[in-house]
Each structure stands twice: as structure tokens, then as C-alpha cells.
């Protein structure tokens, strides 16, 4: 799907001229820099120094589960309330809000899967300078320093993380506007009212309120506030022709984090940039603000379609994470400071080691809301993934078919076109699972409808696809055509479900259908209604093999500021400003709920989204938006998906072939070879590009593409097991090498190769005309096997691999067992009962281990124990399958047809022992040149216990 500018050109002729005349890149002028975003400019103008905040230790309250105390800003006397929690699983939560905000400030709902369970906090010591609290058993402490206020989290003698150590805590308190007539009236009224209230409250609640009355600081607060200067952009600002009225005035927040000993930080997607984050001192901070960016540029910190405010910090000793739970526009500054460290408080003096110690400083700035930050203390990468998963959940376990190949294009023109493309796959013997329909399938961009000429009989079309055991995805975007003959619009309008503009009317923007309303997905009742629209009797022409794609859900508003919604639009009592980054998350949530509900809660949904937030992993898949058919875009797909995986969103992919422009056949083939080894594997193309179904580039390229799609299908058992694993643990499927080898510094900046799970290492070819790639093979004491040739390579080296057009450098780790299904059929569903081939790759100790996961592939019955989960182990010349799900209630027809042991020596005899204790001899074949032993047709059922003994 395209971004704004280009399609707008169809309606706005002047833009067409701009597009044709300009170069092929984003028009940066459409998007704000930090300087153009008033709060970012204001906050960034504040330099590190002594914080004006002081902790009022006398206000400290410590209960079993939390500590609260007040902070005061000595400059304006505004008080904040700090809450500190110790969470289960080695996490600390720090919340800071105004003690008495003029009106409530937004706290992000629905992202945490539950209120995080706490653990007791214990007071270790306290004096006038601060308090020391114990964080559980691991000698971890948090030190609250009073003057100036700062937090230090320590383990033993090491500072793991410091908050406000650079004094950048800022909290723009809500205030009345003073330069207007209405302020003068309301402030007078308010002071009268305050006086009245005081009189009454002092009688009703003599304790609390009275105390406040006599508090001199509080008194000072009211006087001091009037001295606050009014800076430009506090009460209104404009960008290009768009005004933001900002009726609540300034409300930004900011906090700095220091990470001693850390040189590598990752995460905070979505940016088209390297995996390892860069320092931002010489440019803009990384921006998190969901935007529909037309023809985005690579290697810069500009905001893209989604935002996950999670940053991971890593060094050889420890991995930690910071989850900044705020949905407003956010900027993240990163600086690396090995010298010039700030002076620690006296309680920290003794930890001062070498002044050469590297340090990374991170500063978060958000436009509104509160500070609510989760500090994940690891210490291993796995621990951080599990900690984050315990907060926001894990990747939704998708239907198996969704891991197959997806064929998409804007647009397949009509039912006949769909039929022809479907038949093309069979004719060329290429498997696929999903064919996709973009916006043109609808009746005039009215979602949930079909073009009556081109798609006059959708059920017939869906049945045709179903007959091949395949599926379809149709797009449903959140902008709703304003048209009184359109049922969806009428219902939303009559129920009052639209987002409102600042004046209280329905907000209207311009998008594909022309004038459009935007349903308020932050409302639970709206989401429930939206979900009900996916019922088979509501969504006409839909069937159980029709799934959904949510595009443009940043939301994209063609004529809005930065191509999105006005920040002063209203979602009930909240401004769009507060909830912006959540919109796409909620759209996908409501849609996924709809797909679950239409099946009566039995079938797993599949929903692809372009916009996302923390927690979106629970709802489906994401893709990297409107990329281009260029080699650099192929290259960037790796770090972009790696960054998403690190923050829980494993089901990630990029448009294979590139969305804009036309790929050369070499680029297209290389992109298929890369995409086949990424979690979400979908080809997509822009409306204006020539057709590019896999068979349109000559027989040689067809064969290359066929081969790699078939490789994907043989590996589906492994992919599926990885998704099950990430559903349980939150670990990324596509993962950077450092996640598996956290002590190997050589891996820290690698983002041109990656692991799938822990057993497959992939180094895609992403250079034009490449004759070879250099892949880093980690683990000095292990070996890696080329999956195509079985050639063995030692770990701990940079290996040059010569490549041809058919080469995809993929290596299986010594010590792993990978199940495959080699009988590639038309679709994944056709392969359901097919037998497995086990690839046992031996390590130096002649051992290996792997897993096998099997279920029905599409229902939620796995949550009722209806699955097979087995551990496969090879050691002492015995390969065995052991049950990991003892009370599993699932049986399979699949059996083991072949076992390939790589790095083996030739045995004399091989015996199979079944669960019943029966023994039989197994035929085998040994290839001495590659040390590959192939066991012929052992034949046991894949769900049973068995042992194979080599003698």
C-alpha cells in the first residue's frame, strides 16, 4: 500500500508536479524535526546539570509493595509524586506524575496484559541524603538521593542504571493560560471557588487539607507559578498550514537514564536504520510518532509507521531494558560519554572505578502523559525478553498457514485475475498460502464491501481458493468514507463512535475514499462494535478463509499535519496528542478480536498491521511499510525486523521485491531468498509497477524463486516451532547474533546476518552482482554446516562464502536438530499429515538437541493441551524422542520418513526401538565425503516415544 503523497497526486495536481520534479525520496519538509516540534525544542534546550528536583524524604511512604514520595521542583515549587515498585521477575517500575495535576494526565491503558505483580521492597538505610532499598535477593539495591533527586540501581558494587543523574527530569505541570481573557475570568472564579472549597474542606477533612494549607511550599507554588514564562509554542503552534490549538498548554515530560559500562543500545523501533543505535548529539533524536511516510529514506532517525518505546542496553556482562510507557509523540536522545561523567553522590563514591569506563546516556522526551517506566534488569538477553513479555505479552501464535508464502499486489484486478494468478502457481508448481486484495477490491474504498463488477461473487472466489486449501486476505482500513448510503459510516456516526474534532463535531480527514471519518478505536465499545462487523452475516461475501489487513492506521490523514490526525482532535476526554501512538494498536486489536469472534472463539486470527505500539505482538503480524525496489531497502529489512524482534514483535517482514519501483530480476531473486528466511514472507508491489508474479522473469529466475519458496515450505515445521517458542517466551525468532552469544563482542554490531531461533544462521546476499559474502560464524568451539552442501565450518571465524544466483548462505548450528517436511505441496494445509525428515547436526561432542511441535495448525485448541511437543536428543550414538507435554491430547498422522545425521561416522548397524519396546533394523546410507548418514524410512509416528541406536 502506498503512502500519502503519491496517491494524493491523483487528486491534487500540484503534488503530481512536485513528485515528478523531485528526487526519489521522502519529502522531509512534510515531517517535523525536533526544532519544529515545540516541546522537543523546549526540552532539548535544557542541558545536563544539577536537577532542580529534590526528594522530600519526609513524605516517603513505604508499604509492602511500593514506595511513594514527593519531589519538588525548587524553581517553581510544583510537586510531583514518585511511585517506585519492585516487580516480579527482576524489574523496577518508576512512575512520576504531578502530585495535584490541574486535570488528570493520560496513563496508557490496555498495553500491559495485567497489573504487573509486585514484590516486597525493604528499607536498608535512610538518612537526610537519601534512602537505600533492597530489590530482592540478588544484592540489588535502589538508592534514592534527595538533593538533587536521582535514582541509582545497583548490584553489588556496580551501578546498573541511574535516573536523573544528568538532571534532565522535567515535568511541565498543567496550568491555566494567563494571557487570555478567559484565563482572567476563570482564575478569578477559581480562586473564589478555591476559597469556598477551603472553607468547607477544612471542616470536612481537617487533616489532609489543612496541612497543605499551612505548607509554605504549597503557598509559594501558587505565587511562583504566575512567574512561569510563556514561551512560544506552549499554547499553540503550527506546522506548515496546520494549527495545533493546545488548549491544555505545555505538558511535556522528560527523564534521563545513564548506563555505565554500556556501549551498545538497541530497539526503539520503527526506524529505517542500523540495529545498533547511534548517538544523536549531532542530529535529531530518534523519533517515535506513528506516521505514514511516503518513500522513506534509510539510515536516519525519522519516525515511521510504528513505535515501540523499548530500549535494550547490552554489554558482555549484562543486558537490561527500559520500557517507557507513553503513547504521545516521543523523542529519544542517545549520547555516549566515556569521559566527562557526572559526579556521583557520596554514597556512590566507592564504586568510582576507572574514569575510562564507557557509558551511554539515554534521554526520553514525551509530549504529554506521565512518566511510567519499567526498568528490566536482565541480566541475560533471554531474561529481558521474558521480563518484557511478562508486561506486554508475547507474539500471537499465528495459524501455520500464515508462515507460508503470501502473494500480494496493489491490486489483483478482479476475480478472474485472482483465479489466473492462483492457477499460475499450480502451473509453475510453486506453493503459496495467501493471496491478497488491496483497496481496489472494495466498492469505492468502502471497507467491508466488494466492487460489484470486479468482485461480484466473492464467495465463489473464496471457495475456489479454499478448494486448493489456500486463503485470502482483504484490506480493511480504519478511515471510513463519509457517505450516508454506507452502512458502516451511518452506524458509526449514529453511535457517536467517530473521533471528534476540537469543536466537538465528527473529525473528518481526507484519505482513499475522499472525505473520511476515523472511528475512535480507543473506546472499548467502539472496538466491540467493529469486531462484530467481521461476523459472517455482517461482512458480506466473507468466509472462514478470508483474513484481514489493517493499513493506514497510524492513522494516515492525507490533509492532516504530518499526514496524520490533528493533535487537538478528541477521543472522549483525551486529546489525540495523548493517544496517538496507540491508534494502530487498537485498530489491530479490534480487528483480531473480530476474526476470533466470528469463529466462536475457536480459530486463530491473522491480521497484518502497518502501525503498531508496545503490545502489538499479541495481535498479529507487522510489515515495514512502503519500501522500494532498491538494494539498500533489501539490506535494511534485516535490521528493521531485528529491532522489532528485540521488542517482542517477531512476526515481521518487508515487501518482497520492494513496493515502489520495479526490481531487476537479480534484486527480485535475492529478495525472495532473503524474505524466505524472514518471519513474514510476502511479495507486494505498487499499482504503477509492471506485474511480477514469480514466473514472469524467465525460466531460470522462475526456477530460482520456486526453489527458495520451496525451501521455506520444507522449513515450516521449524518456523512453526519457533513461533510456539516465542509465544511462550517472548524471545525473538529472527534474532541478532549477540542475543545468543552475549559475550562475543564481535557480534554486537552485526546486522547483515542473523539467527532464526538459535539453530539457523542466515547471511542473505544483499549486494548487486555479488560473488561472495563474508559471514561471521560465532562460537569458537562449535561447528556450522552449510544447509545446502552439508559442508562443515568452524565457529569463531569470518568465513568467505562464494555465491552464485542460487546460493543462500544458511548454516545449521552443530548440536542442533531441525525437523523439515520435504514433500512440498500446493499450500501448507496440504502438507499437514506429511512425514518429517530430521536433520541432526552434530557438534564436537557428537551431540545434538532439538524440538518438534505439532498441533492442528489453526485453532486455539493448543491452549487446551491439544498439541505434541517433543524433545529430540542425540548423544552417545542414541537419538531419542521424549515427550515434553505429558498430558498432550493430540495425535498426528505424520511419521518420520528420514533422519539425516550430519558430521556422523559410519555405523555398523542401526536399530529402532519403539515405545512398545519392539526393535527393528534400519537401512542407511553413508556419504563419507560429507560425513552424512541418512537413515532410510524409520517410519515411527512423530508423536510417539522412540529411540534410534547407532552401533
Amino acid at each position: 500500500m502506498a503512502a500519502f503523497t503519491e496517491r494524493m497526486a491523483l487528486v491534487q495536481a500540484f503534488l503530481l508536479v512536485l513528485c515528478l520534479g523531485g528526487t526519489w525520496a521522502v519529502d522531509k519538509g512534510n515531517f517535523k524535526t525536533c526544532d519544529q516540534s515545540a516541546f522537543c525544542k523546549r526540552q532539548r534546550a535544557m542541558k545536563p546539570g544539577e536537577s532542580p528536583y529534590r526528594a522530600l524524604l519526609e513524605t516517603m511512604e513505604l508499604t509492602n509493595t511500593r514506595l511513594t514520595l514527593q519531589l519538588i521542583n525548587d524553581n517553581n515549587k510544583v510537586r510531583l509524586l514518585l511511585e517506585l515498585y519492585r516487580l516480579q521477575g527482576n524489574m523496577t517500575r518508576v512512575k512520576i506524575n504531578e502530585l495535584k495535576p490541574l486535570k488528570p494526565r493520560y496513563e496508557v491503558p490496555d498495553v500491559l496484559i495485567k497489573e504487573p505483580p509486585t514484590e516486597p521492597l525493604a528499607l536498608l538505610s535512610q538518612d537526610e541524603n537519601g534512602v537505600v532499598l533492597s530489590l530482592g535477593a540478588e544484592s540489588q539495591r535502589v538508592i534514592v538521593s534527595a538533593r538533587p533527586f536521582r535514582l541509582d540501581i545497583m548490584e553489588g558494587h556496580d551501578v546498573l542504571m541511574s535516573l536523573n543523574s544528568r538532571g534532565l527530569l522535567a515535568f511541565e505541570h498543567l496550568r491555566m493560560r494567563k494571557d487570555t481573557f478567559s484565563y482572567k475570568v476563570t482564575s478569578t472564579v477559581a480562586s473564589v471557588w478555591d476559597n469556598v472549597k477551603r472553607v468547607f474542606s477544612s471542616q470536612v477533612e481537617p487533616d489532609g487539607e489543612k496541612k497543605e494549607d499551612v505548607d509554605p511550599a504549597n503557598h509559594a507554588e501558587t505565587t511562583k507559578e504566575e512567574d512561569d514564562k510563556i514561551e512560544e509554542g506552549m499554547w499553540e503552534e503550527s506546522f506548515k498550514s496546520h494549527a495545533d490549538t493546545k488548549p491544555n498548554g505545555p505538558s511535556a515530560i522528560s527523564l534521563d537514564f545513564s548506563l555505565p559500562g554500556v556501549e551498545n543500545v538497541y530497539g526503539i523501533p520503527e526506524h529505517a536504520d542500523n540495529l545498533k543505535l547511534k548517538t544523536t548529539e549531532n542530529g535529531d533524536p530518534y523519533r517515535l510518532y506513528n506516521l505514514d511516510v511516503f518513500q522513506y529514506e534509510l539510515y536516519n532517525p525519522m519516525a515511521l509507521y510504528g513505535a515501540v518505546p523499548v530500549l535494550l542496553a547490552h554489554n558482555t556482562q549484562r543486558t537490561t531494558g527500559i520500557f517507557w510507557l507513553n503513547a504521545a509523540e516521543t523523542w529519544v536522545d542517545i549520547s555516549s560519554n566515556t569521559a566527562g561523567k557526572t559526579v556521583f553522590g557520596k554514597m556512590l563514591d566507592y564504586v568510582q572505578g576507572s574514569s575510562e569506563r564507557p557509558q551511554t546516556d539515554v534521554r526520553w522526551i514525551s509530549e504529554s502523559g506521565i512518566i511510567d517506566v519499567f526498568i528490566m534488569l536482565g541480566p541475560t538477553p533471554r531474561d529481558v525478553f521474558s521480563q518484557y513479555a511478562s508486561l506486554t505479552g508475547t507474539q500471537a501464535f499465528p495459524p501455520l498457514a500464515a508462515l507460508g508464502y503470501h502473494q500480494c499486489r496493489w491490486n489483483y484486478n478482479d476475480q478472474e485475475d485472482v483465479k489466473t494468478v492462483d492457477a499460475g502457481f499450480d502451473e509453475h508448481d510453486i506453493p503459496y498460502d495467501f493471496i491478497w486484495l488491496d483497496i481496489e477490491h472494495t466498492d469505492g474504498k468502502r471497507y467491508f464491501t466488494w466492487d460489484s463488477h470486479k468482485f461480484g461473487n466473492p464467495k465463489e472466489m473464496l471457495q475456489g481458493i479454499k478448494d486448493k486449501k489456500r486463503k485470502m486476505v482483504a484490506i480493511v482500513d480504519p478511515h471510513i468514507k463519509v457517505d450516508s448510503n454506507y452502512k458502516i459510516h451511518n452506524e458509526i456516526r449514529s453511535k457517536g463512535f467517530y473521533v471528534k474534532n476540537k469543536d466537538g463535531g465528527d473529525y473528518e480527514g481526507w484519505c482513499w475514499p475522499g472525505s473520511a471519518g476515523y472511528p475512535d478505536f480507543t473506546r472499548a465499545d467502539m472496538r466491540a462494535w467493529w469486531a462484530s462487523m467481521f461476523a459472517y452475516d455482517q461482512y458480506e461475501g466473507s468466509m472462514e478463509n478470508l483474513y484481514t489487513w489493517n493499513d493506514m492506521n497510524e492513522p494516515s490523514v492525507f490533509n492532516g499535519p504530518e499526514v496524520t490526525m490533528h493533535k487537538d482532535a478528541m477521543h472522549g476526554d483525551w486529546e489525540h496528542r495523548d493517544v496517538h501512538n496507540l491508534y494502530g494498536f487498537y485498530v489491530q486489536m479490534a480487528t483480531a478480536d473480530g476474526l476470533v469472534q466470528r469463529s466462536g472463539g475457536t480459530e486463530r486470527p491473522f491480521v497484518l498491521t502497518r502501525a503498531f505500539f508496545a503490545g502489538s505482538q499479541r495481535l498479529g503480524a507487522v510489515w515495514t511499510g512502503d519500501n522500494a525496489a532498491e538494494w539498500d531497502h533489501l539490506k535494511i529489512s534485516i535490521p528493521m525486523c531485528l529491532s522489532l524482534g528485540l521488542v517482542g514483535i517477531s512476526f515481521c517482514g518487508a515487501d518482497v521485491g520492494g513496493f515502489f519501483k520495479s526490481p531487476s530480476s537479480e534484486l527480485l531473486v535475492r529478495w525472495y531468498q532473503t524474505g524466505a528466511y524472514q518471519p513474514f514472507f510476502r511479495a507486494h508491489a505498487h499499482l504503477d509497477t509492471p506485474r511480477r508474479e514469480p514466473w514472469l522473469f524467465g525460466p531460470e529466475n522462475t526456477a530460482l524463486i520456486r526453489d527458495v519458496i520451496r525451501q521455506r515450505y520444507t522449513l515450516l515445521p521449524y518456523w512453526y516451532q519457533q513461533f510456539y517458542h516465542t509465544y511462550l517466551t517472548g524471545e525473538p525468532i529472527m534474532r541478532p547474533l549477540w542475543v545468543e552469544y552475549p559475550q562475543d563482542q564481535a557480534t554486537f554490531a552485526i546486522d547483515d546476518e542473523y539467527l532464526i531461533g538459535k539453530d539457523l544462521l542466515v547471511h542473505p546476499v544483499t549486494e548487486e552482482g555479488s560473488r561472495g559474502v563474508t559471514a561471521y560464524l560465532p562460537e569458537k568451539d562449535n561447528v556450522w554446516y552449510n544447509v545446502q552442501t552439508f559442508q562443515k565450518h568452524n565457529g569463531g571465524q569470518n568465513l568467505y562464502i562464494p555465491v552464485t544466483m542460487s546460493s543462500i548462505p544458511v548454516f545449521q548450528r552443530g548440536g542442533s536438530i531441525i525437523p523439515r517436511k520435504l514433500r512440498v505441496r500446493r499450500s501448507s494445509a496440504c502438507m499437514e499429515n506429511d512425514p518429517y525428515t530430521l536433520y541432526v547436526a552434530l557438534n564436537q561432542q557428537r551431540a545434538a538437541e532439538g524440538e518438534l511441535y505439532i498441533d492442528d495448525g489453526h485453532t486455539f485448541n493448543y491452549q487446551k493441551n491439544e498439541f505434541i511437543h517433543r524433545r529430540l536428543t542425540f548423544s552417545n550414538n542414541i537419538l531419542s524422542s521424549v515427550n515434553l507435554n505429558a498430558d498432550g491430547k493430540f495425535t498426528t498422522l505424520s511419521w518420520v520418513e528420514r533422519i539425516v545425521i550430519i558430521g556422523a561416522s559410519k555405523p555398523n548397524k542401526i536399530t529402532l526401538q519403539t515405545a512398545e519396546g519392539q526393535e527393528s533394523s534400519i537401512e542407511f546410507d553413508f556419504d563419507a565425503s560429507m560425513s552424512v548418514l541418512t537413515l532410510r524410512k524409520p517410519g515411527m509416528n512423530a508423536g510417539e516415544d522412540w529411540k534410534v541406536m547407532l552401533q
Partner: protein
Amino acid sequence: MRSKVMNENWHNFLRLIFSMRFHIVVATVFWSDLVDSRKIRGISSSYKRFYREKKSFLCIDGSKMIPFEQVNDDYCDCQDGSDEPGTSACPRGRFYCTNLGFRPHYIPSSRVNDGICDCCDASDEYNSPARCQNSCWNLGQRERAFVEGQMRALDEGLRLKQQLIEEGVLLWREKQAQLRELQQVAEDLQLKLEEHRRKKHEADQTLKALQSSDSGHAGYNSSAVGLFNLLDSNKDGSLSVEEIQSKVTFIRDETRVLTEDEAVTLLGGGHRMDLSTFRNTLWDILTSGDSVKIKDMHSGGAGRLVGDDPHLKAADRAAEWEATNLKKAEESYEQVSAEISELQRKLAIDYGTDWEFLFLNTQCFQLQVYEYTYTLCPFNQVTQKSSAGTEVSLGVWGMWSGSANNPYSQQVYENGEPCWQGGSRSTTVTLTCGTETGLRSAKEPSKCQYIMDFQTPVACQPVLKQRGVHSEL
């Protein structure tokens, strides 16, 4: 007699289909082989000889020898997949659907027992939950009816094509005759043209002679004097700027009045000019007639210019007459030449070996698809008109673009309306055999690239004799 012909055609047609799709290598098969062979699933009778039951089985590519029990035992032993013709075990295997009553054909092994019915005799789903019905007989019936229909259509198409070829030949001849006629006309015109040129030249000569020698010096004089007097409106014996401006004009732009500077230039740089200077300067300029002339030369002025000499008058009229005639002759010659080159251009187009496509070049064909009306004018252009009324060119005649063995199966129209993202619209027209001539479909699979299906009897090809192909019908 008629039915025998039909039968032959029908077989030829089937052979064509089989040879195209399956490339079956045919070996003579003896009935005794079939009796000897065990029932092996998924092979054609022509391959049965490889599967005669023995102790062992040699992969057909000769790469490996395996025990015979391992044939179709659901494990792939042979690289070429030949040991598993009846299962899905081999990645490169193929399964033979016998499809008694319909056409036999191969499917990839991966479609055996995948829960989808591929063979109409249901033989591919022998161990699957799919409930497949044997539909071969119905399909066969339908196909036979279809093929018969196709054959009838082909016969009819070929008959019509023959007619059209004949018409094409006539049309071609007609056009050739037309061309020859035009060329003859052109030749005649050429002669006339020369005649007119000669006559004009003569008339001009006569006129000149009369002007210079016939009337002698006096004539010359009086003529110069006459002109001088004509210009000298106030009769003061001298020409002024105003007099020049009022009487002299540009030949190329008679409406424009000379500027003062221009008049001064004509007066040799001064503001006045007497008769003797006039005779040697301006008189020559005016009579040469390449830049300026006397106003109303042809109506009133000319008479006065040539004076009252009747001979001179007649000669002048004759010269004028011949000039007009020459111009007319030139015009008609140019027109005929243009017609000739247009006809030659059209005749230079390849209209097929027998000019069978020639009749299309004067016609246009329309088809309504959704909100668009497509118009194909063969050998000319393709257009698309939206219901809103805007018409867009989808290309002008480019060339034939069919395959080497049938170049007349496809046409390309290029350089239509430019596209937003660069390039221009183009249309590929595929010609198929049918009894009627018309557009059957029009699509835009990719932006600005259109494809059309155009049916016409002249696209019908007689079925060629095929080499011996075996079918299992």
C-alpha cells in the same frame, strides 16, 4: 464422407493437444507387457516396461538399483523419482492419471493424497480424506462436445477464412489497382505540370519581352513614368515619404503600412526622389516584385501600371492565368502524391501471407468492460473511453509480435497516452480463431499495459499433421 473428415480432424486436434502438453515419448506397447506387469500405481502404459516385476528395480535414469519392494513404498530412493510413481515421496516425481474416458495426464507427485482431487478418475487421492468422484466420463463428454464445437468452429472459421482470403486478395488487387490508377494520375499530372510550367515560362517571357523590347525605350520610359505618376499623388514631380507609405506595400503582408524608416529606405535614404533616380532604383525594386509592390496592383492599379498598351495587357493577363493554372496543377499533384504514399504505407503493412488480415484495416471493434469502452481499429490504433467520456489512446499500430512459427497470432500497439510514472500506454492484442470477428476481452494487468483478445476467422490455422502420438482414449 463428411463424418470421416470430421473424424480425422478430431483426431488431429487431439494429437495436437497431447503433443503440446505432455510430450509423450511413444514406444510400441505390446499387450503382453500389461499382462506381465504387476499393477503399479501412477504410471502410463508406455512406462510399464520399466516396472516389470523382478527382484530389483533400476531407477529409470540408471543411477541406482533398489529391491523391487521399494517401488511405491512411500520413500524416495531414486534421484529421478522413478521408484515412486504412485506416491508423493519424491520431490521431482510425477503421477500418471489414466483418466479413462477423458484425457490422461501427469500431475506432480506432490498432488498425490494432498486432499485435493486432481485426476478426474480420483486415482491421485487413494489414501486421503478427500471424497473424489470419478468425473472422467462427464468431462470427456463435455470435452468431446467442446472439441466438436471447436472443430465445427475451426471448420467454419477456416471456410470463412478462405472467403476472407479471397476477399483479401480481391481487396489487395483493388488496392493495388487503386495505387496504379493513382500513380497513373500522378504521371498525367506530372506531364500537365511540366506543360503548365513551360506555358508559364513562355507567358512570362512574352510579358518581359513586351515590357522591355516591344514597346522600346519609350514603353520602358512611359511605363516608369506611368508608375512614377501613379505614385506622385500631388503631382509635384517628386515622391515623398507620405506618398510611398500610401501607395506601396509589402507583398507578404499587404495590410501593414510601411514605417517612415522603411519608406525612407525605398527612397534611397532621402525624403524625396525625382523621376530619373526613380527609374534607376525604386522602379527596379517595384517591378522585380520580390518584396514590395504597388497597392491594389491587380484590381485597379495593375491596369494603370501596365498602362493602356493592349498587347502588354494581354500578355500580363496570360502570365497571370498560367501562374494560376500552375498552382492548381501543383496542388492536385501534391494531393495525389499524398494519397499514394498513404496507400503505399498501408500496403507496406504485413497483412498475412494471403492478405487475409487486410479487410480489418478499415474497421473498428468495441468492447465494454466495467466502466470502460475499448475500441480496437486494427493496424491503426487502440483507445479507451471511460463512462465519464474521456478518451485515452492505448497505442498506435506497432507490429506483429507472435511467435516465430505463428507471427500472426499477436499484435502490438505502442506509444499511447503517456503514463504518470513514465513510459506510455501500450496494448498487446492476441488473435484467436473464431467464426466471428470481434473483441473478446480487454484487461490492464499492469498499469498502462493492456492486453486484448481478438477473435476472427482469419486467425484460424489448419491443423497440421502431427507425428504419431499415442493416447489412451
